[in-house]
């Protein structure tokens, strides 16, 4: 039973995290001042602008 409860909590947490990520990607898509690359997290993004922006926040 305790395994089921913990599993459900973890799945809910994962769902919340991915949903939030999705929300921010769409949010950045509608904001012309933001770069989507800042949220996509790909290794190639180190060539884009987001690293400097994140460092300076």
């Amino acid at each position: 039973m305790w395994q089921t409860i913990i599993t459900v909590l973890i799945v809910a947490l994962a769902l919340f995290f991915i949903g939030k990520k999705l929300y921010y990607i769409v949010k950045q898509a509608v904001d012309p001042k933001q770069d989507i690359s800042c949220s996509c997290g790909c290794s190639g993004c180190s060539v884009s602008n987001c690293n400097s922006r994140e460092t300076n926040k």
Partner: protein
Amino acid sequence: MAVVAVLYQIVTAEKQTNNNITTSVISKQMSDKSITVALAGNPNAGKTTLFNKLTGARQHVGNYPGITVDHKEGYFNHDGREIVITDLPGTYSLTAYSVEEIVSRDFLTTQRPDVVINIVDASNLERNLYLTTQFLEMGVPLVIALNMMDVAKDRGIEIKFAKLAELLGIPVVPIIARSGKGTDELIRQAIRIADSDKKWIPRDISYGEDLDEVLMEIIAAIEKASFLTERYHARFTAIKYLEHDDQMLTKGQEADQELARQLEQTVGTISDHLLKTMDVYPEAIIADHRYGFIKSIIRQGVMTHKFDTDRLYTSDKIDKVLTNRLLGPLVMLGILFGLYQFTFSWSELPVAWMEGLFSWLGAIVETTLPDGMLKSMVISGVIDGVGGVLGFVPLIMFMFFGIAILEDSGYLARVAFMMDRVFRMFGLHGSSVMPFIVSGGIAGGCAVPGVMATRTLRSPKERMATLLTVPFMNCGAKVPVLVLLIGAFFADHKALYMFLFTMLAWLVALFAAKFLRMTVLKGEATPFVMELPPYRFPTLRGLIIHTWERTWQYIKKAGTVILGISILLWALMTFPGLPQSEQDTFNAARNTITNSYSEAVQREVMDFNDNTDVLSEKALELKNRLKEIEQEESGLTLRNSVAGRIGSFFEPVSVYAGFDWKTNIAMLGGFAAKEVIISTLGTVYSMGDIDVDDADSLGKRLVKDPSWNSVVAVSALIFIMFYAPCFVTVVCIAKEASWKWAFFSMAFNTTFAFFASVLVFQIGNLLG
């Protein structure tokens, strides 16, 4: 997509309310005693290097022109003063000819920074001063940072910077941005100019009798009507009118239609006159006189050459070979193959260690956690799923290290230069090369910055053709999937296959671009001139930082996004489970088999310890029969799950490409992020019905699965390389173009990928 549409609406509403807050924040910043500085200069003059040096930001410095499309902002303190610094895109002029020029000019006129630091490449002084003259014409408070003094010295160029400062009437500070030499003095001078609080006073440069006369006439009309004077000085507006600057003409029409018409008429008259008498346009005369102004300064002893000016510099000598029409491409292919060879051979052992680490972790969880849902999630969802992605960290690290050497040395710019010739044949612009390389042209990039990098293209059709084909490149997320399948099915020639699949990605992308340019995106090609930066010795520190930055992004993504998706996919592969009636059937079968053996044999199997015990023949037979039942049950449970049903739904079609329902689940998961293909396969083969040793790596499990073979692997590799871009790339295409093109990209890529896979699978099967 409905979810995306809802999110879009929520975000748009929130954005509206946020606008007011943003305005108040900006107002507060403006009232502070901080100094705003704009960094401007030609591409490759060292702006980004100086920006990083000053702000401490570890933003990557590439060698290809136009890496910065948007302006970047950073903060630092100097002697207790807060400096807000903006890195403007690299431009050669301030005419509204390219996106970068418009961005830079608009920033200067709308934000009006306290001071502009103009980075000038000392080794290319004359060309770089062309932009400087335009800043002077604009009247911005200016400080010149004379960068790359070391390179200039190596080339035998000596610059008397004090004399240059005197003649230009602005401070000139020699610096070496890479080492930080001279930057303290530069900032001191910038603060001094910013504090002097002078008005923007444009420098008068003569453009010859004809133009000067008209210029005076236009300036008078502009000043009288206060035409656009709230943003631009009258002289600047007048020059832009003479240059037929599209943006200025539009702004003029919007401000005062009648006066704009009069000014255009005046300019038209002088243009006709110049065309008749001298066969030139006013903009050409203006450019000539700007260069004349520069030459007149340089000739006053500002610059002297110690060496023969015709002498070939080291970079030029190297380029004679590396960018040679025949030898260059061969060297390029050799370097690419060498990169893969280096990556695979050096990473083989660390990758095996990682596999061992995750097997060990799995074994620990297996023995410590009791059977149940959590144990299944941790082993199948997390360790076999995310572990599969993390297992490739050493390989990714070696690959990024190799790519960092190519980038930091300046060789990647040569690749772009050589590809430019090929690109024109396929109807693409020279500027398209950079987005292709950023997207993974050498392998290991990302389509998102690649799509954004297409902003440098002015022709909308060339831009669209580039934007739609860059996702065909092998991005950093596809690389581990490619490596997994190549490593499993073509283990003896890993580097060769990786090289061939990279070539295939380029070929398909170029032919797809040609197809688009011949059909939906028909149009003329526009010219392109590319600058080659000098070769540089990469520093070990730089290489380590660049390698680590990218590797860390990979690890971070695996530990966050991929982990989250893996857990959700595990849930989709677990629920709703088997109906009670089917579970009862399996339980009954288990009981029947168990009861057909003696109690002693049953007890032997129940008390069996994997590490120490050896089973009798009968007990082993019982154990294997029970295992068969268990695997059949778990296979059926997976097939009955939500993900299993979706995978099975596509199976009647996907079977033509050789994909069974399990592979379909992975391919669908790959839309979220391509690495998810690995984690999903890891979970599927961990939960499914494949009869393999538990400690086997995913690659070995795939090889042992009868539904996989080398033909299916090639078919899958082709599908993975070319099908719909990941979700973030699709959103990015929608942002950069429109949702229509984003959906087109998904449909076009998936249709092409599927038919290509079917072709490969069917022909492969026919050939045996």
